[in-house]
């Protein structure tokens, strides 16, 4: 599904991402962990053609994301609040993104209904603009918009951060069921080792921009990762 070839990004001589080769198969859920500054977000931004790589390329279905925009039509993403249009109400934002995916008003209603428990009555039909929502609620809006239009690939940066524990658990279940029902290739970066090992079948650990570990999630993966992070120097 996604192929990384010789991808690197440097800022004034300092390498922040350097991934010679990486292949992610369709339907695989890919977890990205690493400390601050490991290059997780930069990597995701390059996958979405938001940052120009210094070298190398990201191939989505065999096509360089810089060269063609086809990937946009099957890729959903939410990295941070800058992805939202903050002067719209959540409803208006969903209507707009829904329209881009060809949803009718009825489609949209059906689609949003599945997020009812996640939204917890705090998002829809409110007279607040996106910018007035709390960080957690903004995240919910972004997540719901990212999953719109049956995407084949979904990128989420820190989806669990800023959410309350209940929502974290609900989101985790939601992601797991989407993975099974829609065959989505998930890319999830997270600092929450617990959640990420539970949702993803493959974990890649970045350290200073390089792939430090690339493991298939097993029973003791969580323990391994915890050991790595507590000994990190």
């Amino acid at each position, binding site marked *: 599904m996604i192929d990384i070839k010789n991808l690197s990004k440097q800022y004034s001589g300092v390498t922040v991402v350097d991934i010679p080769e990486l292949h992610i198969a369709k339907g695989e859920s890919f977890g990205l962990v690493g400390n601050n500054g490991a290059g997780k977000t930069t990597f995701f931004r390059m996958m979405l053609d938001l940052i120009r790589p210094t070298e190398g390329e990201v191939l989505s279905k065999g096509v360089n994301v810089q060269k063609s*925009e086809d990937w946009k039509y099957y890729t959903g993403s939410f990295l941070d609040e800058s992805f939202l249009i903050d002067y*719209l109400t959540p409803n208006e934002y969903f209507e707009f993104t829904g329209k881009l995916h060809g949803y009718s008003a009825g489609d949209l209603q059906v689609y949003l209904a599945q997020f009812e428990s996640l939204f917890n009555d705090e998002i829809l039909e409110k007279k607040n603009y996106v910018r007035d929502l709390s960080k957690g609620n903004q995240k919910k809006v972004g997540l719901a918009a990212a999953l719109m*239009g049956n995407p084949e690939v979904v990128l989420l940066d820190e989806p669990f951060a800023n959410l309350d524990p209940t929502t974290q658990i609900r989101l985790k279940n939601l992601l797991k069921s989407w993975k099974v029902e829609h065959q989505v290739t998930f890319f999830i970066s997270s600092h929450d080792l617990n959640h990420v090992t539970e949702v993803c079948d493959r974990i890649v650990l970045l350290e200073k921009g390089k792939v430090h570990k690339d493991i298939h999630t097993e029973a003791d993966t969580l323990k391994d990762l915890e050991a790595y992070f507590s000994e990190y120097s």
Partner: protein
Amino acid sequence: MIKALLTHQIRQQLRSPIWAKNLLANILLGFASILMAIYALMLGIFLPELFERLLPDLDPVTALNRYLLYYFALEFMMRFFLQKSPVMSINPYLHLPITKSKLIHFMLGKSQVSVFNLFVVLLFSPYAVRIIAPEFGNIGAIAWLAGLFSISMSLHFLLLLLKKKLTEQPIYFWGTLIVFTALYGLDYFEIFAFSTISESLFSGLLHQPLWSGVTVLGWVMLYLINFRFYVANIYPEELVHKQKDQKITSSFAFLNKFGRIGDLIGLELKLILRHKRPRNALVMSVFFLFYGLIFYPTDTYQEANYIFLFIGLFITGVFFLNYGQFLLSWEGSYFDGILTRKLDFRTYLEAKYYLFLATSTLAFILSLGYGWFGLDIVWMNFAAFLYNIGINIFMVMRIAMYKPKKIDLNKRAIFNYEGTGAAQYLIIIPVVLVPYAIYLPFALTGLGNYGLAILAIVGLVGFFMRERWLDVLTKTFIHNRHRIAGGFRAQ
């Protein structure tokens, strides 16, 4: 799609948190731009008469055509400063299934709807109707005007390109200014006839209307070049922060001698020097030092010299007026941090007072040069200076604590009215009218010097009472701090 983007743009304007709160400023701004348009139109209507007056031996068509290239040079410089780059907040759309080219076409197309682009039409269409059409026919007039308009639009896109590609290097501004002043000079002394080039270019347009096609072509070409540039470079980080290596301003080590207050002043100076808008306030203050040059040399003003007090107040006080009126607003985005800082509020305010005192004193010392126009000016500035440091600084600081509004430091400097509220409009009353109320009765009865002496004494007394004033300000600050912080947070 375009409709959706357009509604977003309108909503963004209407729903901007600043918009509603700055309604007054917006109305004034709207009014000002309507006024500007009317002026342009009026100027356009009377342009033929103007040329007749200034260049009576030339026929009006030749006269205008001669100076059109200069006009476009002027327009280029005006655009350089005032034209905004059209990058709408494109971030939220990039990851959505909309093609880049659609977004950029929208962005560039929208950028064309601007007052600047109307200017040339307002200015020259009366000319086209009154002078050109009778002589060259309707087609000639239309082609001529279309040519001018396309040149203006080409300038529009040329500037977009320059501004993005070369990050607002002022060299283009100064370069154009120097080149065209030089050309004008050569023209004036009849060494090189630049105006003849201008004339032959634009009269060519009149005699062969098809030439206007070339200017339209220029417009389209520049549009396409912009389009290609943006398509290749529409990466948020590259478009937004194009500053290559930021200069880190020095740490003002000499301020260390003044203890905590020195540290705070150093911090404030960093705030000023590292952000466009406060830096602009500082530059304006230096600029206003020369304000006196407009008035002092003129006899009419010398006779009515009571107006010089205003100039004195302004010259020695412009920085704290300009910057101090937004006293707390500058730090509005981290005001909670200030309230929880390990620092008593009195020191916080004291540092600001001493910064204003220092700038006023510096301005006064520099204004001593005006003694060349008469010692009475120095004396007047001295009285104004004392009144400023004893009364006005405190007045401005107090008024600025009334419902301050947050300022986003990272926004542009020109035409930015963020943070302006009722207090900023009213500030002029106590600052200028009160000293005049004291001074004017004396001045009109020929006892101006006594009036100045009283002002100076009032100022001096105020200055010696500064500890007391600072206590009062601190009390007000403490009393209002929750409301102020709440206001900042809500915006």
